[in-house]
């Protein structure tokens, strides 16, 4: 399972994880290849689905969202899909998924303040098939470390980018 990446593809990913606007010329120089090679390889990384694109990471606080919270939801098995559908339509829910383990559903919300969080919580709790909801408010640093992803070992046979 999973795509094979060669050293150039890995160098591109590692550079763009730190700064998505990193210059291809600089990456090319560090890999000792042409800028054209880097730009073609990057297109291939996107085309094969290894990357979904590039984005800027915004600070929710700058947009008036002071509070990040996650919910662990318990629900009847037969209604999980229905609840997920309900959650996906809620404007403050940025992530929701069915889980195994402690909860049936895990969801993440970005809200203006604690009062707003309570509204969201009440709305979820108001769903007739939700049995229990546990709320955790995230405080302090919310650290994002995309570079903690281990990439597959460089591979010589049929890596991304070979024509």
């Amino acid at each position, binding site marked *: 399972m999973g795509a094979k990446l060669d050293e150039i593809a890995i160098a591109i990913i590692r550079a*763009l994880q730190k700064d*998505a606007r990193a210059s291809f010329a600089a990456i090319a120089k560090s890999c000792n290849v042409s800028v054209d090679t880097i730009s073609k390889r990057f297109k291939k990384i996107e085309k094969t689905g290894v990357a979904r694109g590039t*984005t800027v990471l*915004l600070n929710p606080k700058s947009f008036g969202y002071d509070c990040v919270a996650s919910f*662990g939801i318990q629900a009847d098995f037969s209604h999980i899909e229905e609840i997920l559908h309900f959650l996906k339509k809620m404007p403050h829910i940025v992530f929701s998924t069915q889980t*195994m383990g402690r909860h049936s559903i895990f969801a993440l919300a970005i809200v203006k303040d604690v009062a707003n969080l309570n509204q969201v919580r009440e709305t979820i709790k108001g769903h007739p098939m939700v049995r229990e909801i546990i709320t955790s408010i995230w405080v302090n640093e919310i*650290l994002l470390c995309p570079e903690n992803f281990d990439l597959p070992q460089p591979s010589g046979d049929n890596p991304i980018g070979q024509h």
Partner: protein
Amino acid sequence: MDNTDLFIIETLTKDARTSFRQIASALNVSPDTIIDRYNALQEKGIIRGSTIVLNPKEIGYGSMAVFMIDISPVKENKNRFDSSLILETLIKMRNIIVASKTVGDHDLLAIGVAKDFRHLFAIRNEIAAIPGVKDMEVSFWTEITKLSPKYFVI
């Protein structure tokens, strides 16, 4: 933030590599204006950074998990491992992509990516071995849904 800032943010959220010249010509201003605005947005902390959004499944990660961690109360915790120290350790761990202190049912929360069950267990054991970690609950999922990557990339 004015409309120029919002346009820059919106464009770069969709594709962080959009050239400043392209944004400038769409807004009918000079590229220098866009560069200055972009730098200011970063300085003010509105834009925290930029990154490539990987598809975990394509690089061999079949599942994700949330680790809900409880730490020992200071009384039982002779070495006074505080939550900041544990958070720092967590975020340096391979495969942990988001971590935060939390108020509510647990003290800390971390989200990680795992290749398979064996890997998931290994990550869990690694977290359990951090001094000061008392208890942990885990929920995991395999369907990696697309998330609006505005504030978080999961």
